[in-house]
């Protein structure tokens, strides 16, 4: 199965995430869309890892594991981000009782 199937799949997921960020107003949903983007990237990494392990696995034994470990770390990062992000969203909700990002326009110009 050609790798570009995976590329297109994850590109599609990524794009959907981007569109979600663009069109949704709820901070939570926007954030979830960003998570989707991260996942798309992760999927791509794993796909490439597989691709590399087949193509050059003999000469570069670490090529495949590298990517998977990277995905592992990206999940770590995502987790950290989620904790902080949700805290900020909650803080915001506490103050203005809304999670609408368009509500945030005190700072402009």
């Amino acid at each position, binding site marked *: 199965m050609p790798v570009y199937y995976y590329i297109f799949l994850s590109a599609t997921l990524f794009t959907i995430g*981007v569109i979600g*960020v*663009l*069109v949704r*107003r709820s901070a939570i949903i*926007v954030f979830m869309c960003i998570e989707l983007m991260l996942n798309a990237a992760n999927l791509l990494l794993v796909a490439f890892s597989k691709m590399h392990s087949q193509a050059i696995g003999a000469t570069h034994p670490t090529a495949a594991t590298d990517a998977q470990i990277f995905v592992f770390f990206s999940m770590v990062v995502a987790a950290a981000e989620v904790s902080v992000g949700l805290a900020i969203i909650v803080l915001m909700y506490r103050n203005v009782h809304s999670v609408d*990002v*368009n509500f*945030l*326009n*005190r*700072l*402009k*110009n």
Partner: protein
Amino acid sequence: MNNILHIAWLIPFLPLVGFLVNGLGRNQLSKSISGIIGSGTILASFLLSVYVFLSVKDGNTHVAHYFDFINTGALKIGFDFQVDQLSSLFLLIITGVGFLIHVYSTSYMHDETPNNFAKYFAYLNLFVFSMLLLVLGGNYVIMFIGWEGVGLCSYLLIGFWFKNDNYNSAAKKAFVMNRIGDLGFLLAVFWLITKLGTTDYHTVFQNVSQLTSFDITCITLLLFVGATGKSAQIPLYTWLPDAMAGPTPVSALIHAATMVTAGIYMIARSNILFTMAPTTQTVIAIIGLATAILAATIALKQNDIKKVLAYSTVSQLGYMFLGLGVGAYTGAVFHVMTHAFFKALLFLGAGSVIHALHGEQDMRKMGGLKKYMSITHITFLLGCIAIAGIPPFSGFFSKDEILAAAFSSNPVLWVIGVLGAVMTAFYMFRLYTMTFLGNFRGTDEQQHHLHESPGAITFPLIILAVLAVIGGLIGIPEVFMHGGHRLEAFLEPIFRESKKIQGTHHLSHSTEYFLMAASVVGASIAIIFAWKNYKDYRYSTEENTGIARVLENKWYVDEIYSSVIVQPVRALGGFFTNVVERGIIDGIVNGVGRAVNYGSRQIRLLQSGQVGTYVLLMVFGILILFVIQLFL
């Protein structure tokens, strides 16, 4: 020989010293001391000039190099004096007439405060210094220094009574008009430097053959432009009548005897150039003649005594240029000399009259002064006869020489020239008659105070009258007496080269006699006519009409200049100030600033505060970058 060069620098230097002493010490010096310093330095210069004059009679030319004025390798201009026949003759005229006028001034200006009195003499000395520099200069640059210097002094002296704004305007006008001429002079000098690399007379004249005829024509035309400014020729003559605003001795010295002849001196000095440029000569002759006629016509209808004399000066200068134009260099220089005598005399006489009348200059309010001021009257009459060209007074010889040369060049020039001479006779005697004959038309107050002027005033008048009468005798034409033209012989080394080129064309004796007779007869008729008409002049306020009115208003030349040149220049200045400067150039500069400000205000709105918009714009940015990177 070297003696001359050792003392030559003293001639201008002494007046300079006089200027400095009087100028710096004007608050300390008493009037008599200033007068003595002022006159004494000139007298000393005059004596030195006589010595110099006598030394150059042998036909030698001396050039003294004092120091380098400008020496940059590429251009070398020395502070040089050249002493030869032409310059020594002018030295005599300047210092001689100058001394007389200084003496005259000690009395004439006696009403001024000591401060102003000293200032006056300082200016006058400065003028003499500049004029001497002009004639002594060994190259065109030194000549130009004097040239502008005399213009400056003229400016200072015209505006001497600076409370009166009209006087100041007249002074300014004189300076600016002179400057226009000076520009021409300068351009000619630049041209010379560009082509020959030098401005020294002798080098220039020796290398004249290296110049193309186009160069020579242009150079001489430009020099002539300079001369029209200084010597009040068309189109730059209008300053001279206005310059009468200055004290009368100033008018006599600067605006009659010396400074205005600088142009003639300059052309005579560069005669070889002009001789090689026939086109220029034609132009000079025509301009000179036109000026002579134009000024004469205007003089016919003027009522201000000094104005009449001023226009007469312009007219006489025109004659001199006519002489230069037709190649009669000696005649022109001769006329300069005789003119210096009788015109200085006339001005000083007019000054005496004005002095007696406490500043009244309108001839319509004079009359009958013969009774009160006999010396003034007689000397003035002699001056009038001299200028009218009645033999054997000096004016006759010099004017006749010019007219004769004009005739041999082109009879038409002669005809017009004689016409001018007739007019000259007419207006001079109109002036004389209105002033001295008939009844006094001024106020009783004035009449009560009428008296002959003091000795300091009459003494110069007498001397000058003598000179005006006999001055012509050094230039008796060939027809009367062989070898009678001693001036021509004296100046021969100066004009030798030009003579060679021109060749000699002698008029037959009979023609010459006829020419003389014609002009004398014409002048005599005019004198009688004037006498008849104005002997019993009555003051009237009736306005002139027709051509007379045009003449009274000087052909409206000032008005024409104002509307054709002055106003447009001012308007252009205004246009530049208000439209170009403020609107366009400043507008662009400020416009950039405003555009930045405006852009700032608009671009700022991009920062809408909406995360959605931000991300959208970012995505657009991403898209653009991708497209550029991947597909371009």
